[in-house]
């Protein structure tokens, strides 16, 4: 079931909210408490997603492994000094 189409006025509110979203995130304030989100599922979803992305990024661990050649080259370079 598709959601009802937003009016121009509603879209303007969304634009204004999203214009200031970066500042809201960086202010340390919790953007999810912003009043506009109570009436706009679209912007609420956006905030949830951005928070989710930032949370998931913190979980990315240093799991990549360099090939054995890297250490061999380091040893070689050091021995030539």
């Amino acid at each position, binding site marked *: 079931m598709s959601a009802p189409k937003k009016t121009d006025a509603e879209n303007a509110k969304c634009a204004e909210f999203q214009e200031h979203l970066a500042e809201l995130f960086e202010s340390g304030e919790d953007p999810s408490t912003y009043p506009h989100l109570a009436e706009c599922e679209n912007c609420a979803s956006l905030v949830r997603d951005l928070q989710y992305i930032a949370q998931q990024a913190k979980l*990315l661990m240093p799991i990549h492994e360099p090939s054995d050649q890297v250490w061999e080259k380091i040893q070689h370079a050091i021995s030539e000094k």
Partner: protein
Amino acid sequence: MLGTVTQATFTPARASNRLAPKALTKKVGMPTTPAPTTSPQTGPPAKPPNQHMRRNPPIAGEAEAIAAAQAGDATSFEILYQMHRRRVYSLCLRMLGNVAEAEDLTQEAFLQLFRKISTFRGDSAFSTWLHRLSVNVVLMHLRKKGLPLVSLEETLEPSQDDGPRKDIGSRDLTLSGSIDRVTLERAVENLPPGYRLVFVLHDVEGYEHNEIATMMSCSIGNSKSQLHKARLRLRELLRTGQRKEAE
């Protein structure tokens, strides 16, 4: 060769010629690499100053290896390599998005470590110090290549196709709870370089905006703006991937 090291001594920095080819004579077994575990805690953990510190806890045996490496012990230098290679390489790979370049710069970072380890005084965690050194190696490399560290998209109007767009009036899939690590890693790889750098440094590695601004020679506001745009772009990339999967 991993697993064995040449028993030799070296003094990084000024007298690094002590690791001369003539000294490379006796092979010894590589001691077991200490597991990257945290030191036992004797009391309630102090609150770390930031995420970067939280993600760089002390490693068992590291202090001894640093001291020995500073005194010129090659085996200890390899132990330090084994302890930190994944962290340095992962950082390089995520910042650059290219395996060959990431390996080259991992090598360069450890060669710089070899030259500079005698200057490490323990004012910060060793891993933090090495991490910062590695970031600088990558940023220097990008500057030499003439690539802008701050995304050129910063100067574009939001309405242009390359820039992140406002999300108005569209109701679609939500990401929450649906993204695995591999998918996120792939999306990060596909970010424009300037966005990727700030995102990796801030959200993945835990640097603060003032630190990023200093390292990248940009304003704090610029760093914040780039981060927000990077997250918006990631959302687009992840949602596009979800839509394709759903089709």
